[in-house]
């Protein structure tokens, strides 16, 4: 004992003299209930020394000397500075607070969420840990004003304030500052590449227009996902989720769901830390099984009555190959009549238009049901000085998924890699990164199935057989539809059955052949290179004014090996330069903060674009903030809208660039607007080349955030948006053969619509902390579009109302080891429009539930999760899969 006391004395002596380091052990707990708080950050003030408290709030930090000031902070708690005089066990009690979490995306500098000048939603690691969602990415759908479209289990496309669709080019996603888009697609490929769940520190969502800070694309929101720094979160963590899905699916039986993730981070020294992360998801995907009939040609694309048995021209939504259609009368029967004169009079009695489609295959029959996603990532962090960190990071993701564009695409063995180098200091950063895409064996299901049909029996032959059989069936006294069905059964003789060896052989040969060689494969090895930097001058100005400046350079390198893009001399390069400046000033004793930001972007193929933003935050009282903003956003045409040059059987899709217009001689010999020409060949409206302008939106927003009685957090907003120069396609026909003045070809060109539409919406969320660790939360939001011209397809795709209601408890039962989270999301019906199909979606109810049980002794947690608890299948976009219940058991170890 004496020796021990002596040693302690020496230790104290040493610590006070600053020679020996001191270890402080302690615990951080909730001041209201005394429970330990997980993942609290404990940092030695004015240093980089810091640790994160464990599951139950325990921490251990080594400081060079005593006394020392520790900064103890955690999301949703008031940060506390503790003056530590000796090394005895330290207990820190933190006050939980709502709206106090620090967000950086709203203004590109850290600020408290409650004081954000624009609407912002934040999802913390704690939320992810206790959320029912099987994928952290899907938590976004629970936020107010958010719509998601699920094209596949692993392909969720979020949006805010309207314009939902799979593959959303109006919504930006950044992961640790890396633009997460696939360069040739211009949208994020779901969660195929990105962070593993265990590495997510937080997600921040900026609804609405946000180009002023983030550049092209963020017209309908920006999502920023931040990873965990290996200096702050160390050690091994892993998570295993196994579950079951597709229960009660009539086309696909109940199937297992696996999701494993792993994170290893090590702090080698004060200067160097690294991490390795990985995630593997394997399941049988949700199945798109909308077999309703689709009016593809000469209509607005709406769904209509009809089945394969009752409509000879049936074109099922999720049935492919049946897009091939002809007028049997004019193209086959009349020719038969010429060869077989004794049928001519009979044929003359038939209707002038007998549309007949070929027999298709369902998505179920064509797409590999296994969806796989494998992600691996790593980062090296080196602190050159305590205030300057160098980061070298890489992410790689591969997998199978399906997404809905103008057709359904099977993204098979898609590979995306991202590499970044960054230097980060308190006031500035510079980073450079690249995204390398390889579409693998991705193919267009419609194109592939149509070519597949041509391969097993060319349409010329199929329709000829059909025509003869149809006539013979009719002459035997059958009514029309029975004659059609008999004709189809005759023409379909030899049709490979789905799944047969012959089917697989032919299907593989078509899907692995590029579209331009009459296959369905799209080759894509495009890359994106970005360099950017930012400097915060505020401290140089003694914080009298907040001043921030930044800029970036982006280069797309489009390489499809001439299969997709107009590549004449090798890959196409698109360069963009942008710069932004933000000035903020607090006035009237910090009762008012004004900020103005502006950004200028120049794409080498488009005129420069200036996007301003002005915001004001009024603080009438503590914990009450009113925010006002004027925001603008725009997007350049997607890389495909700029440079595609693809023949798709029925015509050619070309990009907006003048070079391509010239290649097709559309400048000197303009195309004629196709719908009018087809309706009346005398009606020839030329489509003259006009330089395409970026699409843009201007938005005004008023919002209010308040924390009432320190227990009820309220956030509300109202906004309006005005959109113009919508980018879209227009079909033209071009008379291109001098020797044959009647011959023409079909070309689809990119144009700006002259439609101007207005949107309007509002949202309200409440978060109420109750005694005994209960919380009740809910939100309601609304989005509407106005002034839509009759002939304009806006694809607004948002319900007028959506709501979320939830209740959770973060600790109950013995030792408060249990927790639960139950929520119910409802959305109103949606008139859904897309290039793929148009229909009204019924209202959707989804109830999610999770029950947690903490295992503090082994730093672990068990979770039983249910997404769509009542297994009520729903689709949130026409042609997308039906999503049912996903039930899983998760074991997570050491999720800090």
């Amino acid at each position: 004992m004496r020796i021990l006391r002596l040693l302690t004395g020496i230790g104290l002596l040493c610590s006070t003299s600053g020679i020996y380091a001191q270890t402080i052990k302690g615990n951080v707990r909730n001041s209201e209930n005394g429970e330990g708080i997980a993942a609290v950050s404990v940092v030695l003030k004015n240093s980089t020394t810091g640790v994160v408290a464990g599951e139950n709030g325990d921490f251990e930090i080594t400081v060079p000397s005593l006394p020392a000031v520790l900064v103890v902070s955690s999301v949703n708690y008031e940060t506390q500075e503790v003056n530590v005089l000796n090394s005895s066990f330290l207990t820190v009690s933190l006050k939980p607070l709502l709206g106090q979490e620090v967000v950086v995306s709203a203004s590109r500098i850290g600020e408290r969420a409650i004081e954000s000048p624009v609407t912002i939603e934040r999802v913390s690691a704690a939320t992810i840990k206790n959320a029912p969602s099987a994928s952290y990415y899907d938590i976004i759908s629970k936020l107010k004003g958010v719509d998601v479209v699920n094209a596949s289990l692993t392909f969720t496309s979020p949006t805010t304030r309207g314009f939902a669709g799979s593959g959303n080019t109006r919504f930006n996603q950044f992961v640790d500052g890396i633009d997460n888009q696939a360069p040739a697609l211009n949208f994020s490929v779901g969660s195929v590449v990105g962070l593993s769940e265990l590495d997510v520190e937080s997600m921040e969502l900026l609804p609405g227009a946000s180009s002023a800070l983030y550049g092209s694309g963020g017209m309908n929101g920006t999502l920023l996902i931040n990873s965990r720094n290996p200096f702050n979160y160390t050690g091994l963590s892993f998570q295993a989720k196994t579950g079951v899905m597709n229960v009660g699916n009539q086309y696909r039986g109940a199937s297992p769901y696996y999701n494993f993730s792993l994170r290893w981070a090590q702090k080698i020294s004060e200067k160097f830390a690294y991490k390795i992360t990985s995630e593997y998801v394997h399941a049988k995907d949700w199945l798109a099984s909308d077999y309703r009939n689709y009016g593809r040609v000469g209509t607005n694309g709406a769904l209509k009555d009809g089945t394969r048995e009752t409509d000879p021209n049936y074109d099922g939504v999720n049935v492919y190959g049946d897009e091939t259609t002809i007028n049997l009368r004019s193209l086959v029967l009349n020719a038969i009549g010429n060869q077989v004169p004794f049928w001519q009079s009979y044929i003359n009695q038939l209707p002038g238009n007998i549309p007949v489609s070929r027999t298709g295959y369902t998505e179920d029959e064509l797409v590999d049901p296994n969806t796989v996603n494998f992600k691996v990532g790593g980062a090296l962090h080196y602190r050159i000085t305590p205030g300057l960190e160098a980061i070298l990071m890489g992410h790689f993701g591969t997998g199978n998924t399906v997404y809905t564009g103008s057709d359904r695409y099977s993204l098979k063995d898609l590979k995306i890699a991202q590499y970044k180098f960054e230097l980060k200091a308190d006031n500035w950063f510079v980073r450079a990164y690249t995204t390398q895409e390889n579409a693998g064996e991705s193919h267009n299901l419609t194109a592939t199935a149509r070519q597949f049909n041509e391969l097993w029996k060319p349409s010329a032959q199929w329709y000829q057989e059909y025509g003869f059989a149809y006539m013979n069936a009719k002459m035997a006294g059958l009514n029309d539809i029975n004659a059609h069905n008999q004709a189809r059964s005759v023409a379909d003789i030899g049709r490979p059955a789905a799944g047969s060896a012959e089917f697989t052989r032919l299907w593989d040969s078509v899907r692995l052949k590029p579209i331009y060689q009459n296959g369905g494969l799209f080759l894509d090895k495009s890359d994106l290179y970005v360099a950017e930097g930012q400097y915060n001058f505020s401290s140089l100005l003694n914080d009298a004014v907040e001043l921030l400046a930044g800029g970036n350079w982006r280069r797309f390198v489009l390489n499809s090996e001439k299969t997709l893009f107009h590549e004449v001399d090798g890959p196409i390069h698109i360069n963009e330069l942008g710069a932004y400046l933000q000035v903020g000033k607090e006035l009237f004793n910090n009762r008012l903060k004004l900020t103005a930001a502006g950004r200028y972007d120049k794409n080498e193929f488009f005129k420069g674009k200036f996007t301003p933003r002005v915001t004001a935050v009024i603080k009438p009282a503590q914990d009450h903030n009113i925010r006002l903003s004027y925001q603008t956003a725009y997007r350049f045409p997607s890389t495909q809208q700029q440079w595609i040059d693809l023949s798709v059987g029925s015509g050619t899709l070309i990009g907006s660039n003048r070079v391509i217009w010239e290649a097709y001689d559309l400048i000197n010999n303009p195309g004629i607007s196709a719908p009018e020409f087809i309706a009346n060949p005398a009606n020839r409206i030329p489509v003259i080349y006009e330089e395409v302008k970026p699409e843009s939106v201007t938005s005004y927003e008023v919002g209010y955030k308040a924390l009432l009685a320190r227990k009820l957090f309220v956030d509300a907003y109202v906004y309006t948006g005005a959109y113009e120069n919508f980018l879209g396609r227009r079909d033209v026909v071009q008379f291109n053969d001098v020797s044959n003045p009647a011959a023409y070809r079909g070309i689809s060109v990119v144009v700006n619509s002259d439609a101007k539409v207005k949107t309007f919406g509002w949202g309200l969320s409440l978060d109420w902390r109750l005694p005994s660790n209960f919380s009740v939360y809910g939100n309601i939001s609304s989005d509407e579009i106005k002034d839509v011209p009759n002939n304009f397809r806006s694809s607004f795709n948002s319900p007028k109302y959506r709501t979320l209601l939830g209740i959770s408890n973060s600790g109950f039962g013995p030792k408060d080891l249990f927790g639960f989270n139950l929520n119910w999301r409802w959305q109103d019906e949606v008139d859904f429009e897309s290039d793929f199909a148009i229909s009204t979606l019924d209202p959707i109810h989804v109830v999610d539930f999770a029950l947690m049980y903490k295992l503090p002794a082994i730093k672990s947690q068990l979770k039983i999760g249910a997404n769509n608890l009542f297994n009520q299948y729903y689709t949130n976009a026409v042609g997308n899969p039906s999503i049912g219940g996903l039930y899983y058991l998760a074991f997570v170890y050491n999720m800090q």
Partner: protein
Amino acid sequence: MKILSNPNNTIRMRFLGALLSLTFLTACNKELPPPKPIETPAPSGETIMEKLNAADYSILKAAIEKAGTFASTTGKLSDILANPEGVITFFAPDNTAILRSFALMGLPADASSLNFFRAGQLDSLLKYHLIGGLSLTTNSISPVAPALNLYLQSALLLAPPSPSLPPGYRMPIFLGKQGSSGFVNNIPIVQADIAAANGVMHKTYAALLPPDKVIWQTIAANAGGSYDYFKAAVIRADGGESASGQFQSALSTPNANFTVFVPTDAAFEQTLTQLIAKALMEGGMPQGDAVSAATLLVGVYGPTIISNPSSIPVYGPGLAAEITPELLAGVVAYHIVAQPGTTVVGYRNFLVNFPATAANLPTLVNASVPQHPGLTLQASFGALGITAATVKGLGNATASNVVLNAIPGVTHDIHHINGVIQRIDQVLLPIPL
């Protein structure tokens, strides 16, 4: 448990209860609707089979029932007529019409005459009264020259479609209209457009009797001894008796379709006399002598003048030089109504399909002389039917008369599988002699 011991328990449980009940009550998504079949309006009213239950169709009904005992490859007729989902056009001779037909066939005009027919015969006969897949009302027939009828296919199968999918051939049937009166072949429709659940029925004046020969069979057999000259002309024009000869093969093709104007032997003799007299006069013989000599030659040698003119003593070389195969080919071609561009398809003009206002029809001559005006057809219709039918050749001074008989099929409307023969009283001349 802590949750139960808490005084605020009741309130919390209410929250939870309210939330749960709300979710259970409302969380019910609609299943993705299955594709909705296109509803074909359910056929209403009686089927044709049911219509035949009327008393005045009793013989027809009995015939159909008897036909049903035959195992036909094209299905049981009564099933086709009774199928409410089928679509057919049916020509229904009532009892009066059937008895009339029995009489024409020389059978007793009594229902018992059905016994003369075997079930298979009745099946064929009655399927000739049926057109599958179309519901043809008389409005469907647009009375447009050159043939005022529709060339349709009955359900009487002659050549079934084979697996390699040639079209198959059914006994053709013709639906025509003269003024507002409808005809099937040359049989008047007594009551048109009787709508039924599975199509339309037309009551006819007589039963339809399917032809059993092709045109060349009748000509080659020299039926009634009245085709001597035309037969000889065809064979010589074809360069001999040969199935592959141009005219013989065309007139033998079952799925061809022609109207063949066959001049009577007397008409040929008259034309030959004129032709030979003209040639003799051109050789310097006085008109009276030339006519006498020509009449004598025709009277003595008859069809040999056409079939083998060089065999005739003295006049042989002269006749052979005059009556060449080329000349005969032109003459024969001019008697066969054809569609331009085809050698096997023309129009089947029953007399009821002759235009009331003179109109021209192309012939096989148009195959080599496209601009030739063809033949001019015309018919006069009285209250009781045809009163006169004529056809005029370009080289003829006057129009030829179709030889009319009280019974169709004797000298006019002689029906064949591949066409119809109309006997005429002049040889048609594509150019003047």
